[in-house]
């Protein structure tokens, strides 16, 4: 998604729940509802905030102490 003055598009996209990473095509045909949903799922970015929140939540719990999230977030923090 381009960053040039597309705030409203981006905002609408977030409201629709999708952050399609690239849109190389203008039009597309899908053989079925499932195929369309599969395509949509692949284009939908999972918010990194979820992993960060889980890092905090699981850190507060008894259980595995090793930082699982370090592997997921790339070893930083």
């Amino acid at each position, binding site marked *: 998604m381009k960053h040039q003055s597309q705030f409203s598009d981006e905002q609408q996209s977030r409201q629709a729940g999708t952050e399609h990473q690239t849109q190389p095509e203008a039009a597309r045909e899908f053989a079925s*509802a499932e195929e369309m949903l599969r395509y949509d799922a692949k284009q939908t970015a999972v918010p990194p905030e*979820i992993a960060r929140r889980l890092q905090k939540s699981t850190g507060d719990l008894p259980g595995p102490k*090793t930082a699982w999230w370090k592997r997921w977030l790339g070893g930083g923090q």
Partner: protein
Amino acid sequence: MTGPPADLASAAFSSLYAENNRAIYYLALRYLGDPQKAEDATHDVFLKAFRKLDQFRGEASHRTWLYRIAINHCRNLQQAWHDRHVFANTDDPIWDCAVANADSPLRVLEIKELGRLIQKVLDALPDEYRLLLLLVADEELSYEQVGMLTEQSPDAVRGKLHRARKAFTVLFKKYTDSNHETPKPIFR
């Protein structure tokens, strides 16, 4: 809490998240229709999984185990919202009387509009059809697994899936033809 050693449990959870976060987030997003609720739900689902990781016995795949947690969680959220906001709607679903081929291709002219359009269509479908389509769209699930998750036989899944596809197709074409007309919720 008893269970595997911390290192093993941590590695297992890391893999569990890496392999399934997209599937669970997408289900929550399109089932609930709200990115913030989907984010919260995905967090809560994986947190429940983390707490119960040592109870996972391998009788189902990790994916179906997580889906079961996610479906229950989303249904509870949906029910709480439904109780507060929705009243009886006796309108007949438009797809019942529509003439449409469930197998006809679906064409979208603006791919960047796809997410919004899909959400409109799913929002107008009964919960049962919405869930069925979302689960069947996951190529890792068999009809048998979808049947287990929705508490019906694989044959019933096939039958309902045909009707769900038809409903999706009718609504999709209606909304694309009417150029993003706001849909009226049918029923839940």
